[in-house]
């Protein structure tokens, strides 16, 4: 349609303007509002008449294809990428594709049918592409076999495009929706081969994200947006010092505040001890929690501060005894002979993931069933944790994954889930536990602090002849009891970004310090001088460059 036909209405409201423009029937906009993803992402779009071809995909009588997404969506557009990886092989009509979360509960009941639901390690595409293509190809071949059976012709005489199967010699046609039920019962003698990248026709083309329409009108629900009948709200405060304990608190001080339902203590295995106020709204819960007198036992870590760790790390730059992890040539000698020596020390602090959606989790615990609504990167562990904490059998635990307002690895931990389940266990109604922004920051799983010194010797032509690098990380202070708290992300970062054997050394050590040192002579190649400047990621960048052979 012509853009000039746009209807413009301007609503005058009070002293200002709200500009409201309507663009009816715009071409680009065709069917943007059709439900491609449920706005409550944990709900299913699949109807009774639809046929599941395999756990990854369902075909409706009208040829609509529903893809089951077994990765969490936190901004990577996983619903789109998973749909494309499957439909690349399925050869269905892309405009009729929609997507929904796979069931975590089913995943466990059916022997981990979705293979890997943990959404981390940048793996949603990288790790799953081949088996998703396989699922799509397999479904396609079963649909084709069903059509071939219907006509009594060999598979080789059939072609398919956009979900329409054609018997090439006669021109007869069948749609996927017409053969889905038969296809579901077919077993293939052998799995079909999947396409190689040069054969892609869908994955190699940009397509609008399935997720976007839900995100521009406020309709999609994040964990924070979950609302259930009879739901209570809880504001939680965990020990401000890692692994501290609740000494005492005075519930009577807040129990008459408006809307307050109860005050609940929580703790247990891998749950930072703390107290939550439960009320009829988050605001009532939060304002009461702010007034609740709580005394903490800080435990062993009461004196630990980031500043102290940073000072210790800087001091360690010159201490002897650092482990040599890589050494190539004789960098010290080369440094001595260099025309010029440049030195720089960088430090990076502990960093919170600082996503936009504060931590939250909604849970309902009854004697024989647990339901958890949460945006989590590890729904499998969330289910196992909820089962363990409540004693309810795994088969009766349901994780309803939500859209996630930023994960960045932080939402791998499920500490929000464990805490919420521990709180919900004490209530007879569903409860949404919300951490304030302050609480979310205070109880992050931080990117580890690092101090690194770079020394480079430059030759007469200005190119480096030696590079000596010492990296200090304080990952554990002191022993393994902080491992689950600070160090899980440290471990991953260390192993991935620094050196492969890092994990082994770290796990075996019980000192406060982890020493990592990298020595090497940079190979003299014009145009390949490494960039070691830039503050925040210089250490990791420099080292990953250095480790590249040649």
């Amino acid at each position, binding site marked *: 349609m012509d*853009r*000039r036909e*746009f209807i*413009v209405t301007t609503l005058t*409201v*009070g*002293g*200002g*303007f*709200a*500009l*409201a*423009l*309507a*663009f*009816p029937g*715009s071409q*680009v*906009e065709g069917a*943007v*509002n059709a439900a491609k993803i449920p706005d409550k992402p944990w709900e299913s779009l699949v109807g009774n008449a639809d046929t599941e071809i395999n756990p990854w995909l369902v075909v409706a009588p009208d040829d609509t294809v529903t893809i089951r997404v077994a990765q969490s969506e*936190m*901004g*990577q*557009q996983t619903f789109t990428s998973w749909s494309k990886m499957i439909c690349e092989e399925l050869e269905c009509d892309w405009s009729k594709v929609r997507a929904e979360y796979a069931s975590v509960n089913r995943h466990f009941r059916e022997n981990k049918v979705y293979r890997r639901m943990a959404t981390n390690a940048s793996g949603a595409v990288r790790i799953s592409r081949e088996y998703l293509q396989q699922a799509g190809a397999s479904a396609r071949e079963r649909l084709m076999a069903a059509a071939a059976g219907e006509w009594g012709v060999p598979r080789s005489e059939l072609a398919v495009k956009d979900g329409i199967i054609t018997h090439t010699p006669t021109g007869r046609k069948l749609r996927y929706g017409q053969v889905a039920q038969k296809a579901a019962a077919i077993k293939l003698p052998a799995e079909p081969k999947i396409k190689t990248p040069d054969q892609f026709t869908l994955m190699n083309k940009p397509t*609008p*994200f399935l*997720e*976007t*329409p*839900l*995100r*521009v*009108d*406020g*309709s*999609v*629900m*994040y964990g*924070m*947006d979950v*609302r259930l009948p009879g739901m209570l*709200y809880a504001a939680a405060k965990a020990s401000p010092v890692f692994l501290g304990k609740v000494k005492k608190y005075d519930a009577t001080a807040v129990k008459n505040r*408006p809307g307050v339902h109860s005050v609940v203590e929580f703790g247990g295995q891998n749950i930072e001890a703390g107290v939550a106020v439960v009320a009829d*709204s*988050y*605001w009532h819960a939060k304002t009461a929690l702010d007034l609740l007198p709580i005394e903490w036992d800080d435990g062993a870590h009461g004196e630990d501060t980031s500043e102290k760790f940073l000072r210790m790390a800087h001091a360690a730059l010159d201490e002897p005894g650092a482990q040599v992890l890589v050494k190539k040539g004789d960098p010290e000698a080369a440094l001595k002979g260099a025309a010029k020596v440049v030195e720089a020390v960088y430090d990076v602090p502990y960093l919170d993931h*600082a*996503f*936009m*959606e*504060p931590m939250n989790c909604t849970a309902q615990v009854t004697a024989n069933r647990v339901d958890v609504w949460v945006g989590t990167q590890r729904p499998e562990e969330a289910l196992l944790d909820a089962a363990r904490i409540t004693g309810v059998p795994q088969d009766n635990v349901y994780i309803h994954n939500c*859209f*996630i*307002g*930023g*994960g*960045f690895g932080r939402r791998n931990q499920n500490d929000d889930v464990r805490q919420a389940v521990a709180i919900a266990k004490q209530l007879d109604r569903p409860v949404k536990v*919300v951490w304030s*922004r302050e609480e979310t920051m205070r109880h992050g799983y931080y990117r580890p602090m690092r101090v690194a010194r770079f020394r480079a010797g430059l030759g007469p032509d200005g190119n480096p002849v030696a590079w000596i690098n010492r990296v200090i990380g304080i990952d554990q202070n002191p022993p393994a009891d902080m491992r689950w708290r600070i160090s899980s992300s440290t471990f991953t970062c260390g192993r991935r970004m620094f050196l492969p054997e890092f994990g082994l050394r770290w796990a075996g050590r019980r000192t406060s310090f982890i020493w990592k040192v990298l020595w090497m002579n940079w190979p003299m190649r014009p145009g390949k001088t490494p960039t070691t400047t830039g503050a925040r990621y210089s250490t990791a960048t420099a080292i990953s460059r250095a480790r590249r052979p040649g």
Partner: protein
Amino acid sequence: MLSLRINGKTYSVDVERETPLLWVIRDTIGLTGTKYGCGMGLCGACTVHVNGKAVRACSQPVSQAAGKDVTTIEGLSPNAQHPLQIAWREGDVPECGYCQPGQIMAAAALLAKNSKPGDADITREVTNLCRCGTYPRIRQAIHRAAELAAKS
């Protein structure tokens, strides 16, 4: 009891006068498109319009909105056809999307008073945070929306 007009509908709400508008919109009325991000008016995820002006609802007592017209992302346009929403879809602006309702509402207030904002205007007026870093696409989409609105 306070009377609130949100997206053209009148609501009677039984809340304390100092309750932030955000929590009345989200918990009492149940419109969850307006997000909680920081609770201190810093991130802008809770941006709504009060009488057409962009307001950070987490830091605004509900009593100050009584008797005024409040617009949330759900009420920005019928069928999500505001030029900004169209431009947002065209450009696939959001990543995780959590901040985007606030971004759109801040941009809508800007467009309402300045139909062709320059980069400097956007920088000054749309100060919402986005952890995914969609800022360049947000900026492009605002320019595109201004263009769409001008052509209409």
